[in-house]
């Protein structure tokens, strides 16, 4: 039986946080209880901040905390409401027919432009009353999008609207996302009320941490992660300097130090550990199935340019093309991907990836420069569209290079299904799945680690 009362609620909240991967220990929970002694509870902001200060101890944890907090207390409230059979006054829906739809549209657009949170919530309810009644599809996401379209809200500029309409210049994406959240929440609330039961709990998907696979996704969050990654890498070597395991004695400095003690080497001096700065060749598949992931990945690598001695990047679909310069010029992800699609000239005839041909071209192009201290990174889904994989040419490349990594932007579950031939290549290299920011971070760590 689950524990009851307030302590029980707090425990199950902590349990949910643990399920999402936060390290919440007993001491943290004790702290949380102690902290709640000192603040005023009716203020939701204080309550949340106090819990966050004791339970979520890194920016990433904090993000997960926010999501779980929302979900947990929303569900707790609704469950209690359903149990006590409290429903909302339904008189509002009778007047739904009287809502002037055009005024409503304009009002919502104006509220979005102001960014007023309370107004947005109220208007979301009105919008549901106006457009959502009777024809709900039962799938929340579909309903949300249908209502958004009915309201004429879009991120792109829409010149057909009159001059003073805020929709004319497009609605800011961030506002749009917030409004959609309100819509989703209100729809969910209405559904719980109708069925008097809670829908099954939706775990925070890996999607919340996924790399951008489409241009619409919120890049800002990912860029924050990358900025952090940069700082970590910049200091990575320094961290290793303190460790004395497997240290090499620096004979010259030891002898120099021994002069202080009359020539007896009493204190040993060790050689400093230096971070590995590998020479890197990156090959990126930019066919439509993986474009965003790979351009994003390339721009990350180039952002990390300082960490590597030499970095050359190539993109390919049917043919291969060097794009090192594009990234040196363009540090912005969007601009770089535009430049690549404009002048890389990699799609030859069919526009489908031809791995065999790419390996051969790469080998002729770069054969003399590959050496045992070079690292080759391939980013692609290894989907050959039925063409021969030519893994013997790939083996020749990996044979010459010191290390070869394969990053696959597909989850491991889909590997070797359909036309994916990653198994043939995996024999010759180390393959990673790389579709979440933490996987990317893990990979970069491996890359810069001392061999």
């Amino acid at each position, binding site marked *: 039986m689950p524990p009851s009362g307030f302590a029980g609620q707090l425990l199950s909240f902590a349990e949910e946080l643990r399920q999402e991967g936060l390290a919440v*220990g007993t001491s943290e929970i004790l*702290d949380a209880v102690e*902290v709640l002694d000192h603040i005023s509870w009716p203020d939701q902001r204080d309550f949340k*901040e106090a819990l966050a200060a004791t339970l979520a101890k890194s920016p990433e944890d904090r993000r997960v905390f926010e999501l779980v907090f929302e979900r947990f207390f929303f569900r707790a409230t609704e469950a209690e409401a359903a149990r006590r059979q409290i429903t909302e006054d339904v008189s509002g829906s009778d007047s739904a027919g009287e809502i002037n739809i055009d005024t409503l549209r304009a009002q919502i657009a104006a509220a979005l432009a102001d960014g007023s949170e309370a107004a947005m919530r109220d208007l979301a309810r009105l919008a549901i009353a106006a457009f959502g009644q009777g024809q709900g599809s039962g799938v929340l996401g579909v309903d949300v999008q249908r209502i958004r379209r009915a309201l004429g809200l879009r991120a792109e500029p829409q010149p057909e609207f009159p001059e003073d309409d805020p929709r004319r210049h497009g609605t800011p994406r961030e506002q749009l996302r917030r409004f959609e959240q309100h819509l989703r929440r209100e729809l969910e609330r209405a559904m719980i009320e109708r069925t008097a039961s809670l829908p099954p709990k939706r775990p925070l998907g890996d999607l919340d941490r996924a790399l951008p696979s489409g241009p619409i996704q919120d890049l800002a969050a990912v860029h924050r992660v990358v900025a952090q990654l940069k700082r970590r890498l*910049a200091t990575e070597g320094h961290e290793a300097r303190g460790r004395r395991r497997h240290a090499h004695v620096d004979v010259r400095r030891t002898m120099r130090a021994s002069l202080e003690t009359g020539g007896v080497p009493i204190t040993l001096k060790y050689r400093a550990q230096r971070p590995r700065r590998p020479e890197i060749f990156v090959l990126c598949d930019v066919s439509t199935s993986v474009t965003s992931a790979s351009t994003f990945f390339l721009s990350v690598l180039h952002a990390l340019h300082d960490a590597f001695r030499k970095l050359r990047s190539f993109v390919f679909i049917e043919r291969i093309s060097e794009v090192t310069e594009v990234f040196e010029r363009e540090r912005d992800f969007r601009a770089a991907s535009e430049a690549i699609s404009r002048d890389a000239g990699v799609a030859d005839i069919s526009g489908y990836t031809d791995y065999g041909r790419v390996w051969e071209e790469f080998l002729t192009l770069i054969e003399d420069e590959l050496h045992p201290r070079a690292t080759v990174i391939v980013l692609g889904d290894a989907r050959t569209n039925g063409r021969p994989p030519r893994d013997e040419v790939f083996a020749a490349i990996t044979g010459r290079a010191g290390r070869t990594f394969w990053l696959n932007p597909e989850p491991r579950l889909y590997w070797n299904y359909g036309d994916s031939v990653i198994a043939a290549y995996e024999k010759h290299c180390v393959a990673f799945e790389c579709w979440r920011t933490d996987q990317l971070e893990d990979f970069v760590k491996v890359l810069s680690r001392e061999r």
Partner: protein
Amino acid sequence: MAIVQPASVEDLASGLKQVGYLPGESTALVSFLATKLGKPVLVEGPAGVGKTELAKALARLLGRSLVRLQCYEGLDEAKALYEWNYRKQLLRIQTESETSGWSEVQDDIFGEEFLLARPLMTAIASPEPVVLLVDEIDKTDQEFEAMLLELLSDFQISIPELGRIEARTQPVVLLTSNNTRELTEALKRRCLYLWLDYPGLEHELEIVRLHSPELDDRVARKLVEVIHRVRELDLKKPPSIAESIDWARTLVLLGASDIDKATFNQTMSVILKHRTDLDTVAARVGVMLDPAANAA
């Protein structure tokens, strides 16, 4: 006007404001909890958002002195905790070697008299409560972090030759980190956590006004807007609050009545510290300030 023990979050927030620090919502709350519970606070965030300043402001507010330990690579116990004053010990041994026996001298030279207190020890042994700031903890190695654990959870220090030294008063402890490396779980577990980020537009505007009230309101708003726009770009070193304040002061000195393209280009170097950043910003933001471009 020092408040020895703030009674509520609002109390502390207004107090901080009076000593020249505008706290965000969570900052005031977590600081309040720190004074109440006596737990250390781990403050993380980008450089220049006022992490160190918070500690100073708290010290002013609570009327305590600030003991600061600046961390760096290779910082060890001898520089952070305590050290035996071996010169003094040697002298003692030399002056007494004739008259007294070994055991007497040995007992003698390991007394508090021969102990050099370093910041952490000073903070603990102080008869008046202090604010202890351990700055940039992420710069040290994990061994040092481990050494801090005893201090942070029990407020005591073990010295092998002397035994345990316990805190006479409870210090308010702040640890700051730029998040360049993941701190150990053990350390985090003992702390309250506060993430300080760049403030929102209105909040930063207030901060700028607080620090340079001479600046024209309209210019101040424009300044903050420009800073926010600059932060959105992919820069090596985005401008922090400290830079906004510096810029505001520069504009006051120059007597600027508006931020136009010319003023911006002249004073841009106040907020940007990399040559490549200067180029990027000149290309992206400078253009927007051009009156001709605005009119078009």
